[in-house]
Structure formats: structure tokens, C-alpha cells
């Protein structure tokens, strides 16, 4: 079941076309990666879904309903890339503010704030000022403020940027719990390994259009194919690379040829088709900034 559908989204800012007919859908309980080079249109797309950008054409539907004429859909939670918190306030006070602005009141607000603190592992630091928090704790609180009202769809804009691997794992554990509860997550990131490892599907956007969408195997099939990249590092410092469909069959003859040429293999690396390869294949190597 699709909880979010974007159809032929178009948006221009003056002479710049930010979205040029982008379409994709987010399914119930999935973690969908929205990838793209800088300036591809990711932020505009996220802001359009959040109701912060009015599309020139196309449509966004959440639970098969159009977006409200003003403001954000109540089922939506948004986690911005910036640490959008009040640093002089405590974690609980930040959650109180953003929970109240999402319409929570009284006991309900208190309960949800307690849940968000517990969920993000900040309960024991709830009364401390945010400015005393580490980068990872701030990131977690940033997420907590976006989900305190228990939204059914959450947009996460680079939620793990600038945090250490431990905090990153913790954040993905939090997201996994949300997914188990049926929450659908749309995540943008430049960490392709992360997206590859954590996300169920991937949407790649470039020049305002969705240029690929699907699971990693589907994307691999459609782009770089299933060939493995084999890298031989020679003792004399040389490097030999080759693509192989069947490593077990194709690698021994290559090793034989190296040996016959009088070289000695120091190390062998076999890499399967990665999201990185798919991404570069689809978007090219040119810098976008």
C-alpha cells in the first residue's frame, strides 16, 4: 500500500527547473532512500511533500489525500538536516514546544514527550540544556522533535550527517523500531553504503526527474549489471582490474595470465555491484557544484 505518492511534480524557481516531472511512491512501513547529486531536486521534493513548496504541476498525495491547502499534512513528521533545536532549552522543553505546535496538549503531550525521550535514549538527559549535548545526542533529539506527535510518514533529510558510527547505528535502530510500528520513512542521504545497507528501496533523482527506483538488485540489473569488480594488487605495485560475471570461472585464468607474465599477486579484492556504482553509472562523475 502506498502511503505517499508523488506524481509528475514540477517546480521552477525563475530560470531554474528544480523538479521536472518527478514521480515515485513510498510504501507502508518501508525505509525508502531518496538519492541524488547536489542540486538534483531532493530538497525541493522534500519541501513540496512537507507543504513548504507549492508545485507548479503534478501532485503529492498522502494516504490518498491531497496535501492541505496550507501547512503540513498532520500524518507527516519532518526531520530537517539542520539541528533545528533551541540550544538554551532542555531536551524535554524542546520536545514540549514542538509537540505542542503539532497539536499535542496536556497528558497526551506529556506521554508523547516521555515516549520520544525514551525512544531516542535521551530520557536520562531530558532536563539538560541541548548545548551540552554531543553531536550524536543532538541528532537524536532532532529526530525526536520530528516524531514526537507519532506521525505515520516521516521525512528525514540526512539524519546521520556529522555523527560517529555508534550514533549512526543508534539512529538506524530507532528508525527500525518506527518501521516495525508501521511508520513509513523517506530518507535522503549522501552515505550510499548506509542507504544500501539500511533501506528497502531506493529512488535516484537527477535534474528534477526520477531516473531510477527499486531495490538494489533491481537497480543493478537495470544499470551496471551483476558483474563483480575484481582487483588484483601485484607485488611490484601494479594493479589489474576486471569485471566478471562468474568469479569462480573467470578468476583462475586471470591469475594464470598474471603468473605467466612474471608478476606475483599480493592481494585479490572482489566487489559486488554497489549502490555507489549504480549511482555513478546513472548520474555520471561530473561535479555538480
Amino acid at each position, binding site marked *: 500500500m502506498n502511503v505517499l505518492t508523488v506524481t509528475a511534480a514540477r517546480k521552477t524557481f525563475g530560470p531554474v527547473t528544480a523538479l521536472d516531472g518527478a514521480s515515485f511512491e513510498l510504501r507502508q512501513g518501508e525505509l525508502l532512500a531518496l538519492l541524488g547529486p547536489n542540486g538534483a531536486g531532493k530538497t525541493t521534493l522534500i519541501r513540496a511533500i512537507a507543504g513548504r513548496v507549492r508545485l507548479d504541476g503534478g501532485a503529492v498525495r498522502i494516504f490518498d489525500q491531497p496535501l492541505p491547502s496550507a501547512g503540513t499534512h498532520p500524518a507527516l513528521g519532518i526531520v*530537517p538536516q539542520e539541528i533545528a533545536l533551541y540550544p538554551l532549552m532542555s531536551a524535554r522543553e524542546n520536545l514540549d514546544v514542538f509537540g505542542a505546535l503539532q497539536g499535542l496538549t496536556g497528558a497526551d503531550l506529556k506521554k508523547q514527550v516521555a515516549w520520544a525521550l525514551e525512544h531516542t535514549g535521551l530520557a536520562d538527559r531530558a532536563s539538560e540544556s541541548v548545548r551540552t549535548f554531543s553531536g550524536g545526542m543532538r541528532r537524536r533529539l532532532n529526530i525526536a522533535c520530528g516524531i514526537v506527535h507519532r506521525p505515520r510518514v516521516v521525512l528525514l533529510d540526512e539524519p546521520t550527517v556529522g555523527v560517529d558510527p555508534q550514533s549512526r547505528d543508534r539512529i538506524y535502530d530507532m528508525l527500525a523500531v518506527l518501521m516495525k510500528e508501521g511508520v513509513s520513512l523517506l530518507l535522503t542521504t549522501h552515505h550510499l553504503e548506509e542507504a544500501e545497507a539500511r533501506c528497502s528501496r531506493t529512488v535516484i533523482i537527477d535534474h528534477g526527474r526520477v531516473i531510477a527506483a527499486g531495490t538494489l538488485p533491481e537497480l543493478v540489473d537495470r544499470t551496471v549489471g551483476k558483474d563483480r569488480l575484481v582487483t588484483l594488487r601485484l607485488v611490484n605495485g601494479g594493479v589489474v582490474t576486471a569485471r566478471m560475471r562468474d568469479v569462480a570461472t573467470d578468476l583462475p585464468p586471470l591469475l594464470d595470465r598474471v603468473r605467466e607474465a612474471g608478476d606475483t599477486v599480493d592481494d585479490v579484492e572482489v566487489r559486488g555491484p554497489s549502490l555507489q556504482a549504480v549511482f555513478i553509472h546513472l548520474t555520471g562523475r561530473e561535479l555538480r557544484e
Partner: protein
Amino acid sequence: MIFTLLKAGWLNLKRDRVAQALTFLLPIVFFSIFASVFGGQGSQTSRIRVAVVDEDHSELSARMVAALEKETSLRVRAADDAGTPLDRAGGERLVRNGDVPVAVVIPKGLGERFAAGGFGTSGEKVQLLADVSDPIAPQMVLGLLQKVTMTAAPDLLMKGGMQQFEKQAGALTLQQRAAVDAWLPRLKAEASGAAAASGTAAGGPMGVSAEIVDVMGSDSRRGSLTSFYAAGIGVMFLLFSCVAGAGGALLDEVEAGTLERLLSTRLRMSWLLLGKWLFLTLVGTAQLTVMFLWGWLVFDLPLLSHLPGFVVMTAVTAAAAAGLGLVLATIARSRAQLSGFSTILILTMSALGGSMFPRFLMSETMQKFGLLTFNGWALDGYLKVFWRDAALWQLWPQVLVLAALTIVFLWAARMLARRWEVG
């Protein structure tokens, strides 16, 4: 090395318009304001407003009024708005209301006493009903009064003198009287010309007997003067804190991303601005209250006896200042821009509006300029409350203007804030 640093400094200054304005424009603006205030801006702009009450209705008093009217450094008002000649109460009211700094009251019988014995005779003096918060105007009017009485009526002065002479030394002969009678019209004719030539004639040794009467009771009002400066400084810093607060409320939130987050909740921009404005208004009210409380505790500022007026003026002043802060914050593209621009604007408004020195010391033109500023209206209101003991209803012009400014500021801020709304 040094050259590289100079080059870097120059490039940064060249590209920083705000720094250029603060470095070069602000000093020029301030120099111009101070030069205009204290340097004299020509006789037309520095005329002192003075009310004249003629209780005597004698030839002498009529001559004095006419001579005062001819003084180019005075703007004389002898009638009320309905055209009725002013009486003492009317003149005093004009002073109390701040319409004029001085009212000259020519007492009944002055002409008769003068005819009998010249200016030196005893009797009721000419009174200058004055608001001595303006230390210049009463003294200047007193000097001019002395001058015009001598120059406007030399024939009458001579007549009186001759009468005294005859009383003491015996009657004049027919020939002597004929000579005096022939001389008097010439003196009278010269008088009308002399009165018009301001500053050219000097007063004689026998001046008109005059006294300055402080109708505001200033001796017991030192605290009121303190309140004036409390308001002046308070309003200037209120503006600074409102701009800083609004900058923090909006621009810092934009930079931190919290504004985007706030607008991604159920909150709408209008409510956001109203909330920020209300908060700034409350903080501004508290700021002014703390300042006046300090004045009351330490400098005998008569706060408690003027509490209703203080509350009204503080509320409307803080509301308008908060609105202005929001407008400036919504105009500015960055905190640095806001800081530079608002510093120039607030200091200029404070100088023109009377926060740095009272507006009544300025020329009439500058005083009118002052009314274009926020500070001018706010300080006029506080002056009415603490100095003129005005009733609450008499604050209506200031309250109306500041309330209207608040609405205009909020509307402008709302329009300008659209850039942060849906794109």
C-alpha cells in the same frame, strides 16, 4: 605580509556595505544632526514661539505687542484658536500644554504707571509664564522684551520722563514744551523702524520690570526631568533590544533551521509573527518598567504619581517598538545586515526624536523632523505624563500614532515575511 593583510582588509571593507555605512555614513549623519541642532539653521527655523497676553490694553502695551510681533526671532501668538485675544489662563494653558515655551503677560495698569513714572515705578511686573525645562527661551524672550519696550515707545518714555521732570523741577516753559512736542512724533516714527531691526538697538538703562514665572513648578520636579531622560534612554535601548530580539526571533531561527521546522508544524506565519511580537512587547514593557522603577528608587522619579500615564505610554511604546523590530528583521537578509542597518536607523531616530537631547532645544524644523521618528512621539507622550501632568485622554495623539505605527509595522512585517512561507 603587511601588504597582504591590508589587501585582505580592503577587499572585505569594499564588499561590506554595512561596514562602509557604519564607518562613513553614520558619522556624517550624526554630525549633520548635531550641527543642525546646535549650529543654528537660519533665523526662520529657530524662531521662538511666544504667547502674548495684553491685560493692559494701553497704547504702550499695544506698542509692545506690535514690537514683539515684528521681532524676527519670535513667533508671536496673541489669540487662541478661535481668534479671541489670549487671557492669562489661556497663555498659561499654552505653556502647560507645551504649545509655547513662554507666555508674556502685560499686566493691567502698566501703561498708566509708565505714563506716571516710567518703567522704574513700582507695581505689577510684566510676567513671563515659562516652562523652564527649556532654559533658553525664557531668557531670550526676557532680553527681547527689554529691548522692544525701549525701542517701541521712546516717545512715551520721554513723555513720562518729562512729566517726572516737571513734577520735580517745575513746569516747562511754553518754548520748552513746544520743543518737546515737536520731538515726540519723530521719536515715535523712529520707534517703528527700530523695532523691526532686530538686534540693532540696545536697551536703555531703564528696563521694563519683568519676572520669569515657572508655571510648571519645576523646583519640585527634578524627578520629572529624570523621567524625561529615563524615557529618552529607555526608548532608545528599547528599540535596540527589540531589534536584537526580533533578529533572534526570526533571523537566528532561519539560520538555525528552527523557523522552517516551526512552519512545518501546524503553526502559520501570522500566528508566529503575532507570538513573537507579543513576546517582544512584553519584554519591552518589562525593560521600560525596570528602568523607571530604578529611577523611582534611586533618583526620586515620580513614577507612582503618574502610574496610569506611564502604563499607557509604556504599553503603546513597547508595542510599536516590537513591531518596528519585526519589520527590520524581516527586511534584513542576515543578522549582520540587521545589526548594521538598525544601528544607523536607531541612533538617527534617537538623535532626531529627542532621546539624546530634548527636542525643544532644536529648531522648529528639526522638531518637526523629530515627529517623523518613533522616538519623537514616544517621548512627547512621556513628557506629557511626567512633565505636564496631562490627563490620560490628552495622550490620545501619541497613543493613536504609536498604535497606528504598530499596525503598519505588523502589516509590513507580515508582507515581508512571505519570503519564508511556501515557495
